[in-house]
């Protein structure tokens, strides 16, 4: 339950603060429940606004040989088509997160480095026409080999993405705290674990949106975007748009449909659409679609980690050795490599470990650039650390909970400085665990496991203890720099929060903050906090959380990230309100003839504590500065508006030993869960999930639990279902919500939530962040339970049934040679292989001729627009083809080899179109069927990429078969005889496929 922090006495009597700590109804809800939300795409845009659509790369790595946009530029309604060249002329490179001669543009220039990278922007009178226009743009690519795995990217012969990085290594730093070498040398045990944390994203249900306009008269931009901060990015944007910061007015809409960090990643599009508006001299609007979002918005980092521990016989961890290889995708966009350094102070988790060695490498790969995502670095770190703790327990034949308990930071040690520099503000981890074990009925859960196992069921229990950092130190990212580089760059530290409290002429209270909520109810909580200061009701306080950088108070730390609202922003609002209240107290004291210390704010009045009858309406006192400044007591100053900035002194820059207090507050989470895995399907079912949170003072219990549940559901998705999957060639495979699976009501159980509150001594309200904890704790807790159930040493997320089946049973045997099967060989493989046969009631010679005749081919290839013969053995074709929901035009190029008329021919071809590319090879064999007809046998092998791989993957095998069937049916018809019923075969197939999924060479 809520517990109010004991705070030092403030200038204002806070007796019986009634609102903070209550789950009042949210002021945000009525509008949202009646369809009156104001999300970016709900807001009107200025007359004459144009709409943008973005052409994106189907290739993971390729040179752009040429872009022909003439047809698109001439299309109806099109105002402009911008390519990298034009955008480059209007902007400068985005800031890259490390010092290196590398550029980063919001659109590809000369080379594409990930699937979905913007290649051209069409601006037209409406969205549909802009989309029509991008289909008319013809881009010729010269593909390169791609690299998608971070460790492979380090190999000497790996394809190199940027000439300015040595190999693909963007940063390589080593750190040592204490004496890890000695600790490892002395320790009786050493345990080690290798982790490959996958890519995923919290995928808000509302996608990105930007409405930009450029005022040529003043050379200034006015941009509305559902950006979430941090506003340090404002400097990146203004620099890229080549205007000073005071000429970039960045605004946010009143409502934003979720973010979870992800909407930080809209900023390259702010630059891109800003540049487009400058080019066309009109406002330009762009709303991202879901395919764009999943493919190319932003992602959490995937990371390969080797973590080792030096361990005493009793399970005490003496030292850690971290070797982390962080994959930031194709570009190192600001603020990356922040994901890697956000946890730097917390690499020892909840444990008292004094010796730590760290090597941090950052690599680039042919995948979407990474950025903020709920948990931000925590899931990656805790997956390694807490998996290792379980392994230590198993290795020492101890209970994992014993190992956790043996290593916890002692309860009397707070504030506790970790080896790597974090200052853990408060907590009592032992008490939290004891309470969770008791209330969460761990003993009963253990019995359930015994019972289940006795019945031969696969049941496991997992534990995890994590420290949840919140309120980021704006200087932590400079830990990536060497001490010398930091000295040169100047100090970076702190986290300026701001709040403005204003009184209107009739005594109404307005609060403004730069916290940019995306559903977290900031307006409600601030109305509670400020109502308490003034003795008002929350409905008397109106809160505005929109931000307008031209008019509002803000700092680089503004925004909604690193769980900073409750700890920093709400506290700052309290301080601002108290400052006004102190002045009002002086004004009221002079009116009531009492001392200011005798003043109390309660029930809408300002009164004398000793004589409550001696009072004056709050609104009267509040209005006085407006109406009669002359009657204010001397040197009170105005009591109209107060803007306060607050930054915690604890957030200092990294020291010369690279110790960094990366965050201000540290909540504690202890989770355990029981899972059962179906022996047949390998589906994981959560039997019970218990999550204990200490987030300090709770301002609104309903919302705190809402954050925990929401974070838990996302983390469950990360544990069991979600992965931004790439094929080896860099094709993106999960472009729809049918491929990237989010948990639904059917999968998400209700976690048991337990609280303990040790208020933070460092924040004005005693609150700490709470929104990101389960993103850090839950994936590894479930993985530990699954490992326990299956007796596995290594588990990789997401724990999809196929992967678990592989781990338990070993991989499926390959089919016998020569027996091609049509299904993809494994998940993530977008090769299509198949074979079959068909009959045509004409002699082989006749069929042969038909297969080589463009006229026949055009007639029998489904969707074929035209076939041109380049030579006798080389054809080009245009086809329109629909796979599942997507229909597109493809240009195919097919060549024939190894001709053995009329017996056999090999076809090799490639195709490409707006929806993707592919290549295929196949062999057709014709033989007389003995009845005057021909029996055709075929085999094919095709690879596909681009949009079609992202959204149609699941449908491709079936589609290929259908299309091939259609081809042979048509061939038989064209031949004038009936086709045999098993009309499947191949030649067409091949050509077909070739164009379809056409190709890359």
């Amino acid at each position, binding site marked *: 339950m809520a517990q109010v922090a004991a705070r030092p006495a403030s200038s204002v009597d806070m007796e019986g603060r009634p609102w903070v700590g209550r*789950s009042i*109804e*949210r002021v*945000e*809800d*009525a509008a*949202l*429940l*009646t*369809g*009156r*939300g104001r*999300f970016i*795409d*709900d807001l009107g845009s200025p007359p004459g606004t144009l709409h943008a659509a973005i052409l994106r790369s189907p290739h993971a790595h390729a040179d752009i040989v040429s872009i022909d946009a003439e047809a698109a530029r001439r299309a109806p309604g099109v105002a402009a088509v911008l390519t990298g060249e034009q955008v480059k002329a209007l902007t400068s490179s985005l800031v890259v997160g490390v010092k290196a001669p590398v550029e980063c543009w919001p659109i590809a220039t000369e080379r594409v480095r990930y699937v979905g990278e913007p290649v051209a922007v069409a601006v037209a009178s409406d969205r*549909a026409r802009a989309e029509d226009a991008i289909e008319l743009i013809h881009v010729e690519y010269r593909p390169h080999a791609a690299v998608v795995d971070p460790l492979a990217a380090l190999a000497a012969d790996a394809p190199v993405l940027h000439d300015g990085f040595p190999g693909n290594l963007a940063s390589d730093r080593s750190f040592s705290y204490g004496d890890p070498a000695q600790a490892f040398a002395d320790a009786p045990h050493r345990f080690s674990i290798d982790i490959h944390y996958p890519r995923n994203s*919290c*995928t*808000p*249900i*509302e*996608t990105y949106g930007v409405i930009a306009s450029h005022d040529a008269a003043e050379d200034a931009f006015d941009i509305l975007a559902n950006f979430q901060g941090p506003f340090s990015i404002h400097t990146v944007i203004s620099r890229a748009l080549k205007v000073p910061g005071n000429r970039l007015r960045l605004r946010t809409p009143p*409502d*934003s*449909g*979720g973010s*979870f960090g992800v909407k930080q990643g809209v900023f390259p599009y702010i630059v891109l659409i800003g540049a487009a508006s400058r080019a066309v001299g009109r406002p330009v609007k762009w709303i991202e*679609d*879901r395919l764009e979002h999943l493919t190319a918005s932003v992602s959490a980092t995937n990371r390969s980690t080797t973590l080792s521990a030096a361990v005493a016989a009793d399970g005490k961890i003496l030292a850690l050795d971290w070797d982390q290889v962080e994959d930031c995708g194709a570009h190192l966009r600001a603020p990356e490599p922040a994901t890697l350094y956000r946890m730097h102070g917390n690499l020892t988790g909840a444990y008292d470990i004094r010796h730590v060695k760290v090597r941090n490498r950052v690599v680039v790969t042919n995948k979407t650039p990474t950025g903020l995502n709920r948990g931000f670095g925590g899931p990656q770190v805790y997956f390694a650390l807490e998996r290792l703790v379980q392994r230590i327990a198993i290795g020492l034949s101890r209970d994992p909970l014993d190992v956790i308990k043996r290593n916890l930071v002692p309860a009397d040690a707070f504030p506790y400085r970790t080896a790597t520099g974090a200052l853990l503000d408060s907590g009592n981890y032992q008490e939290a665990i004891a309470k969770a074990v008791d209330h969460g009925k761990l003993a009963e859960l253990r019995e359930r496991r015994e019972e289940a196992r006795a019945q031969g069921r696969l049941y496991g229990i997992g534990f995890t203890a994590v420290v949840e950092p919140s309120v980021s130190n704006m200087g932590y990212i400079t830990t990536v720099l060497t001490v010398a580089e930091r000295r040169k760059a100047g100090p970076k530290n702190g986290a300026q929060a701001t709040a403005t409290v204003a009184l209107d002429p009739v005594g109404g209270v307005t609060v403004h903050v730069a916290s940019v909520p*995306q*559903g*977290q*109810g900031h307006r409600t909580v601030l109305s509670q906090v400020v109502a308490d200061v003034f003795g008002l009701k929350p409905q008397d306080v109106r809160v505005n959380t929109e931000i307008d950088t031209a008019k509002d108070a803000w700092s680089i730390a503004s925004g909604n990230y690193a769980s900073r609202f409750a700890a920093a922003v709400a506290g700052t609002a309290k301080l601002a309100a108290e400052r006004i209240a102190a002045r009002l107290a002086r004004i009221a004291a002079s009116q009531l003839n009492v001392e200011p210390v005798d003043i109390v704010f309660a029930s809408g009045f300002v009164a004398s504590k000793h004589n409550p009858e001696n009072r004056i309406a709050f609104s009267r006192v509040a209005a006085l500065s407006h109406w009669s400044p002359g009657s204010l007591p001397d040197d009170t100053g105005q009591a109209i508006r107060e803007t306060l900035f607050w930054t915690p002194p604890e957030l200092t820059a990294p020291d010369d030993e690279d110790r960094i207090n990366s965050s201000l507050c540290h909540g504690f989470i202890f989770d355990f869960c029981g899972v059962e895995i179906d022996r047949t399907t390998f589906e994981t079912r959560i039997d019970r999930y218990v999550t204990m949170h200490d987030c300090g003072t709770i301002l609104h219990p*309903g*919302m705190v*639990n*809402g954050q925990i*549940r*929401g*974070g*838990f*559901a*996302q983390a469950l998705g990360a544990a069991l279902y979600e992965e931004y999957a790439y094929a080896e060639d860099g094709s993106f495979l999960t472009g*729809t*919500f*049918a491929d990237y699976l*989010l948990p*639904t*009501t*059917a999968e*998400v159980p*209700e*976690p048991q939530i337990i609280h303990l509150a040790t208020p933070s001594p460092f924040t004005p309200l005693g609150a700490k962040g709470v929104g990101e904890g389960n993103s850090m704790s839950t994936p590894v807790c479930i993985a530990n339970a699954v490992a326990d159930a299956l007796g596995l040493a290594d588990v990789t997320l997401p724990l999809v049934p196929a992967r678990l089946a592989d781990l338990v049973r070993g991989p499926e045997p390959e089919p016998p040679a020569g027996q091609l099967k049509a299904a993809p060989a494994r998940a993530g493989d977008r090769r299509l292989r198949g074979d079959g046969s068909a009959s045509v009631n004409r002699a082989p010679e006749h069929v042969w001729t038909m297969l080589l005749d463009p006229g026949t081919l055009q007639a029998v290839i489904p969707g074929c627009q035209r076939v041109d013969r380049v030579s006798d053995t080389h054809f080009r074709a245009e086809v329109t083809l629909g796979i599942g*929901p997507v229909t597109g035009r493809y240009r195919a190029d097919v060549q024939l080899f190894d001709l053995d008329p009329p017996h056999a021919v090999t076809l090799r071809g490639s195709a490409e179109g707006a929806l993707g590319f592919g290549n295929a090879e196949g062999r057709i064999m014709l033989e007389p069927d003995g009845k005057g007809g021909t029996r055709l046998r075929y085999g094919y092998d095709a690879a596909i990429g681009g949009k079609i791989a992202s*959204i149609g993957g699941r449908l491709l095998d079936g589609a290929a078969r259908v299309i091939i069937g259609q081809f042979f049916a048509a061939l038989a018809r064209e031949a004038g005889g009936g086709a045999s019923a098993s009309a499947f075969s191949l030649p067409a197939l091949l050509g077909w496929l070739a164009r379809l999924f056409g190709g890359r060479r």
Partner: protein
Amino acid sequence: MTRLRADSRHPIRFKLNGRPVEGEAEPRMLLSDFLRHQIGATGTHVGCEHGVCGACTVVIDGMLARSCLTLAAQVDGCEIRTVEGLAPSADRLGILQRAFRRNHALQCGFCTAGILMSLDHYLRRHPAPSETDVRDLLSGHLCRCTGYTPIINAALQAAAELATAIEEKPDV
């Protein structure tokens, strides 16, 4: 049946929450876009445009439908209900909406309109659902904020309340 030409706009008329509305649309225009951008009924949201997230759910002639998978031209002459039509009056919330607010069943509110439409439609026909029924029904909606339980609780509370309210006042 009217023949539609791909390159021209066609008049479309239907009833939206009981009131006649009209506009023009090319045959390819989605109902979701038409509602939002032509009519200005922006309460219906678009989260995926491929039929999975459920944010765009509306009721067409008494049937639940994904407005992102429906063409505007298909609803000519139909009766459509959207989230804007749920509240009994502009300054009051309906029982289901109040239950959502009470249970903190929304955070960003982006998914909410579609979920409300599905529930409103369902609860009118199934006044006493079990938790499993509601979970089943809502498994066609994605919410990224809430973890769903508060939505389920709100739905069950609203169902109980509606059952009483309908007995007393059949038009609620």
